[in-house]
């Protein structure tokens, strides 16, 4: 397969009565043996145009007339990957990446995507550097059955216009509710079947689903704390008997809200810790029965996961966990983009950053922690291996296409790795401790993976 990155040059007017031509460097035409005496198909996202190729003698660009550019939604100066497929007589330009976002604040000219705007700009810059074009759209911008989508792109400022349906859809919807809207579901099915687009990060992962799926893989069981979908008091009693610490976590929770930690006290009784939006509180109960009586009402309203508590490593008395960002590479392989340590904030036992934790490197976290000497050795390698094992396990066991996963891991004081959670919509703000380079590796990977998807 022949591929190259080139700049799009848009020319005013046309030198030919018909606009249906593209001009390509002569050297490239010779190298790829592109026929100039017959019609080829030019593809860009879902758009298809019948064109002729004409040779350009000295410039390694792809030049098209402004009217053809307008029909395709192409801008002057955009850098794209050109992919020639002789079998289907097709020149494919791309990747045309459509990022599905939750909402647009169209009245904010500088920050139409709120806090995500910086990430959107970074995607645009990464496309200019590595080749590709990205636009951003919401569920409201989809018109069912249409071959175009109204989206926003950045070229010095944010502009809204019509684009072909993308060849790669990157789902960044931040709520299950939005994701489950019929129009979104229909769009994702439709673009896959009709225009052969790839959709990645297809859906939110459900904690129960993840743990149930991974339990099927014998090689992964060692990473999984004992955990069940909470059913009844008997289950609570059995878990608390077996483990000194037990967690109750709402299944659809996020940001660490509503989690209950139950710690069996040496002198008898149980100390329970509760998280809420404004910090935490604790309360002791003489028996499990008294705890259950106080909370059974709440526990019937929501579905909870009951989980074995772990003696996690701590730094200065605060628990530490790790967030691995695992992404698929330009060859589709799972690779680790980053792993960072997260030290919990003062008043909470959850290290979620939204709750006031702080970031550090794996080495820092391990070195400063209360891990045993034996556990310290190879901790980093074990975290890396676990991240890849888990990502591959998810790919094997859970239907749906994921291009990146945020995997939350922990180490206990003996150095054993535990899986806490898998997030299919990892935040783009917290995966690099020091963002000194302009385009983060995580964003570069997204573009390269999109290129891989578009060329498949």
């Amino acid at each position, binding site marked *: 397969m022949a591929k190259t990155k080139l*700049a799009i*040059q848009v*020319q*005013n*007017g046309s*030198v*030919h009565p018909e606009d249906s*031509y593209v*001009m390509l460097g002569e050297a490239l035409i010779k190298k790829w043996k592109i026929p*100039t005496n017959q019609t080829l198909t030019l593809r860009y996202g879902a758009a298809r145009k019948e064109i002729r190729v*004409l*040779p*350009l*003698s*000295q*410039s390694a*660009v792809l*030049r098209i007339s402004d009217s053809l550019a307008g029909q395709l939604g192409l801008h002057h100066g955009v850098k794209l990957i050109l992919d020639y497929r002789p079998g289907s007589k097709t020149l494919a330009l791309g990747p045309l990446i459509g990022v599905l976002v939750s909402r647009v604040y169209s009245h904010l000219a500088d920050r139409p995507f709120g806090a995500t705007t910086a990430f959107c700009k970074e995607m645009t810059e990464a496309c200019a550097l590595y080749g590709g074009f990205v636009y951003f759209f919401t569920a409201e911008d989809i018109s069912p059955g249409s071959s175009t989508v109204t989206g926003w792109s950045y070229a010095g400022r944010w502009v809204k216009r019509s684009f072909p349906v993308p060849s790669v859809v990157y789902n960044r919807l931040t709520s299950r509710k939005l994701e489950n809207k019929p129009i979104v579901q229909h769009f994702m099915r439709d673009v896959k079947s009709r225009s052969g687009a790839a959709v990645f990060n297809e859906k939110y992962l459900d904690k129960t689903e993840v743990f149930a799926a991974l339990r099927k893989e014998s090689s992964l069981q060692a990473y999984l704390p004992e955990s069940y979908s909470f059913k009844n008091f008997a289950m609570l009693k059995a878990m608390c008997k077996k483990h000194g610490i037990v967690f109750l976590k709402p299944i659809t929770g996020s940001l660490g809200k509503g989690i209950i930690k139950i710690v069996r006290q040496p002198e008898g009784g149980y100390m329970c810790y509760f998280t809420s939006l404004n910090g935490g509180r604790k309360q002791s109960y003489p028996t499990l029965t008294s705890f259950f009586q106080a909370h059974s009402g709440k526990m019937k309203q929501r579905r909870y996961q009951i989980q074995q508590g772990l003696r996690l490593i701590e730094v200065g008395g605060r628990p530490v966990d790790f967030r691995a960002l695992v992404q698929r590479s330009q060859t589709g392989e799972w690779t680790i983009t980053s792993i960072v340590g997260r030290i919990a904030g003062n008043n909470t036992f959850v290290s979620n950053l939204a709750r006031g934790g702080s970031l550090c490197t794996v080495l820092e976290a391990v070195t400063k922690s209360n891990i045993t000497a034996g556990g310290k050795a190879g901790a980093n390698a074990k975290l890396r291996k676990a991240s890849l094992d888990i990502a591959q396990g998810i790919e094997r066991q859970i239907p749906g296409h994921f291009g990146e996963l945020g995997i939350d891991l922990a180490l206990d004081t003996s150095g054993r790795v535990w899986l806490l959670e898998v997030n299919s919509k990892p935040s783009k703000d917290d995966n690099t401790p020091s963002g000194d380079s302009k385009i983060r590796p995580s964003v570069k990977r997204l573009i390269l993976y999109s290129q891989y998807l578009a060329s498949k």
Partner: protein
Amino acid sequence: MHSNETRYFGIMACESEGFPPFGERQFYRHLCKLGRSLGMETFVFSPHQVDPDTKTVTAYTYLSEQGGWQKKVYPLPQLIYDRSFPSRKGRYGSHRLAVRRMLALQPVRFLGHGLKGKWEVHRALHRDPELRPYLPKTERLQGRNQLLRWLRDRGQAFLKPVNGSHGKGTLHISRRDSGYRIQARTATNRPLEVSFASARPLLLWVSRFIGRRSYLIQQYLELTGSEGGVFDIRSLVQKNGRGLWELTGMAVRKGGSGSITSNLHGGGTAEAIKPFLEREYGSEKALSIESSLRFLSEKIPPALEAVNGRMAELGLDLGVDRDGKVWVIEVNSKPGRSVFHRLCEKKAEWSSVRNPVAYANHLLRRSRADRPQPVLKQVRQNL
């Protein structure tokens, strides 16, 4: 300036023999008629005819109803279209001085800034990566070693004066088995050919020929057609009545065979580009060559304006080599129009005359707020 005030549009020319005392009379006659039809008092003047005491100028305008050219006294114009070519040595200094004196009397705007030397033009275009592939490799000529290195690496080199025109004072130096050969044009555009057995006499001859003038050394381009004749493409781009650049027209200029430039001054002929390119390169390649010619016509004006300031019109000399590669040879900010006349391209010929007047009208109609132009900068750039 209020809209009901009379607007004076002056065409600045150098005086010559005859009546009215300047060249391009046909062109100026059309400018005067068109200018007046748009409500501008339009006249042709020489800066030497300015009276500093009354701040007036004795000038010429064409009035059909009074039977032709009339000599009249006008206030100094608000806007000047510079068509002066003070080429001869003594004349250049005195012309410059006269313009400077006139500008000292009252601020005057020019229709567009003039271009500086060829080296500045090359550098301005080279800043744009999209234009770079179309620029022949060019350096300032700095010394003997540089010339010898070019001849060693490339076998030949083209030397041209930074401030020359019409191919005057250019040299094509090539290495031969037996030494070197120079094909040159003298300062009066006379062709010349000399050969040298070794580098030493070559360098001596070249340094005498060049004297104290500034030169560029440039990649030599084989800009000949299939029959061996030299040709280039003239593209005229102008600001129109809305203040926007437009491509007025393009034409092929063919020189006599054996000459090293295709200037029409050397007595060449003109042809429409499409049939010419198709004959020379085949229909497929002709399309992409034409596309590149148009691309350059579209990109060069804003690229130069970004560095040089606002301009009104440009004549682009573009070359096409035997491989069909397109090259920027030269850019001229006081372009001629005769090529369209020779071609009988009535539409392009008419637009080429109408555009500067329409653009003048556009500039003079804009509000006062837009108007302030740093007068000193204007003086510097136009002299």
